[in-house]
């Protein structure tokens, strides 16, 4: 249990670093130098040092929303398996709990956006709610399918204990389909291109960014941290799914480290460690792919976004059909 806790803390701490990978990839692909890897930490430190300015029209909801959002995502991360390690917390039916926790955070952010009374923040909220409602359909379909295959309702069971069953029943192609669908949801939920543009300054086109226009100082810092953690959550979900099953894992990456095994380290330590490396590698590549997608395509017109999101639904349905065995 201690190991999981430490590991989770490490990932929480490096999530701003991982987030910088996207910017670096984008910069690299268009021939720019890009931000330093520690840039997001500087931003966070800068923001946490600042004062907060509140508009006169707000209610306390505006003030508590970032905290609630951050707590929700931290709690969600405790349910998240990392690699093939089981999570800190888990109970029957936690899948629903997790996704409603995420929604709870979002609801508060939306309420805070509406709270400012600004018309374009209101528009942003409307867009955010509409699009994430579409995303929810896809996510739930994915978990209905997982449930059908494993008969389990814990998130950890899809990625740790029951993973063998999932992978054997679903085989490679449905898993890839699901990963792509999850990737679309990742782009949607984290306000990335082609759904939203995190770089834009155009308040009329923003979705996610416009809701937080009135935030400043530490509140804004919390919001940035939350979105970095959220990105990590979805990227880790995909990595978990794509992570090879333990039996395969134990053979391949251990070979080069064999001599060490006989020495002071036991297989017990080495095995999760090598798995962790594979997990992190997949995780980083998810971030890199986000960067590649962002630099190779433009943003969709807002009315095209539902089509884009729902096209991932098609993939999930296809995966369900492929795994249908009476």
């Amino acid at each position, binding site marked *: 249990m201690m190991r999981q806790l430490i590991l989770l803390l490490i990932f929480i701490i490096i999530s701003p670093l991982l987030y910088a990978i996207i910017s670096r990839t*984008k910069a690299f*692909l*268009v*021939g*720019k130098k890009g931000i330093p890897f520690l840039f997001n930490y500087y931003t966070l430190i800068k923001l946490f040092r600042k004062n907060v300015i509140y508009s006169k029209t707000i209610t306390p909801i505006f003030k508590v929303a970032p905290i609630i959002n951050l707590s929700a995502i931290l709690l969600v991360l405790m349910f998240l398996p990392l690699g093939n390690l089981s999570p800190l917390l888990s109970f029957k039916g936690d899948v629903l709990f997790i996704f409603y926790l995420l929604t709870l955070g979002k609801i508060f952010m939306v309420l805070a956006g509406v709270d400012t009374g600004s*018309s*374009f923040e209101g*528009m942003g909220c409307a867009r955010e709610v509409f699009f994430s409602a579409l995303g929810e359909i896809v996510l739930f379909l994915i978990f209905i399918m997982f449930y059908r295959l494993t008969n389990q309702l814990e998130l950890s069971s899809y990625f740790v204990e029951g993973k063998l069953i999932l992978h054997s029943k679903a085989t490679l192609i449905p898993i890839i389909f699901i990963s792509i669908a999850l990737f679309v949801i990742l782009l949607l939920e984290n306000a990335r*291109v*082609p759904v939203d*543009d995190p*770089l*834009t*300054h*155009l*308040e*009329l*086109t923003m979705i996610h960014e416009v809701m937080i*226009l009135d935030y400043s100082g530490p509140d804004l810092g919390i919001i940035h941290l939350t979105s970095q953690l959220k990105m990590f959550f979805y990227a880790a979900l995909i990595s978990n799914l794509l992570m090879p099953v333990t039996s395969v894992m134990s053979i391949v990456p251990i070979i080069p480290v064999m001599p060490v095994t006989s020495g002071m380290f036991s297989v017990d330590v080495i095995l999760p460690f090598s798995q962790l490396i594979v997990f992190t590698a997949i995780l980083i590549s998810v971030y890199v792919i986000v960067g590649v997608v*962002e*630099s*190779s*395509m*433009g*943003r*969709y*017109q*807002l*009315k*095209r976004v539902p089509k884009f999101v729902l096209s991932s639904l098609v993939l999930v349905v296809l995966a369900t059909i492929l795994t249908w065995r009476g």
Partner: protein
Amino acid sequence: MLLKIKANQLLNLEQIPLIHFYDFYNCILAMVENEEAQIVHYLGYLINGRKMLMIVMRTHKQSVGELHIGVTYAPTEYLSFTANHKMFQLFEREIFEEYQVKMLGHTQLKPLRNNFENYEFYSIAGENVHQVAVGPVHAGVIEPGHFRFNCMGERVAHLEIRLGYQHRGIEKLLLATPFTINRAAILIEAVAGDSAVVNALTFSEMMESALNLLDEKNEQGEKDEGEIENLKMIRTLALELERLSNHIGDLGALSGDVAFLAPAAYFGRMRGEFLNLLLLLSGNRFGKGLIRPANNYYTVTITDINQIEKKLDELNREIIHVSSLLFSTQEIIDRFEGVGVIDYQTALKLGVVGVAARASGVSYDVRKSFLPGYYYNLEQQNKNINTKNKNKNTSKNNGDVLARAETRYFEALDSIRLIKFLLESLRKKIDQQQMVKSKMDLKDVNKKVLPISSVVVAINEGWRGEISHLMITDNMGQIIRYKIKDPSFHNWPALALAMRDQEISDFPLCNKSFNLSYCGFDL
């Protein structure tokens, strides 16, 4: 009847027939309705305590443009032209604001640039309509302007644009006595930073004809045609470089608005390269301080020409390359196509000018219609800007964002071709005399006195479109009215109209595709 004049023609006020307002009104209506006349200037001024109205219209015979000028005493109120012809809308609002002439039947008769205390926005009633107010302070570092949308969900029913936040009273500052050309030129260059060259050029051409500078004889008693030609060539070079840098910058900004990173980054860099060429030519990245009446403050050497030419070849290749990336990406075409459409008829009715007009199929281009400056010589040499690529595929002219982007791209290529031709001609001159000196050996221009009771209209094609200055002097030779008209003055209403029935989230894209000047409008 209105008097037919030429651009940059020095006119005595008495030459213009002072007609009764009734004739003035009917004549203009007839011109607009029968000859498709477009408006260049419509302004009020005070002379001997009397309010006057002056109008400058343009008509076209084949591709040759003609200017017509008319003057009348201003009535206290009259049935507005705007009631029937929307192209007068902002001009009449301006006169209403500055000279309190009341226009009946004008739909939006309210202040234009200041006096905003009791300003009422147009609002649509109804349960589903909500208003979105954007600006004047925006989330990005852009100029201030207020946009008021009446929306139904994401759909824009009406957009009203209120500007004037940068009103500096430039036209009034120019009237300060004693009038010195150097001071005025610096002010003129500050009208709109991105159009410094074209404004300075228009001002200089106007002063040259008002003070008759270019006809001046040197010591030997003959006009130095070569010097004048050099002067015009370097000015044209600067003007085209300004056009290039802005068109390329716009293409980059358009791709940035749809989050297409690669062209945004490349075009952004290329814009800088063009500005650096302008720096090489003039010592200032925006070409400020280069053009003065009868003077260019910088000389061109053979190394400059070689350097510019080399860089242009490089950039030409890159522009074609990056544009093919931009215009062949599906999502981008999808974003650009059919958004913010101004069709041919609407463009004519609104009197849209420049890139936006040409994207809608209105072929008006001052460089071709009025042949100002060196464009006249180019026409003589049969090298006019578009003759070479007449058969090449140009923009589809359907007036959407895509058409405006493509028009910019093709015009940028035309400009490069033109600059190359200019450089060739300059090189020939340099072979003869080592260095092109364009600084004319004139006596202090500042000491000259402006002609009395006169009017000059100067017109040029800036990168946004037709830019025109008009100057009126009184019987003491003092300027009593200096009118600057930025092309944006014609085009802002087109942006408002282009947004009808569009998604509100497409507004930044539409706005960028027009890329109009706020400060050029505010003055």
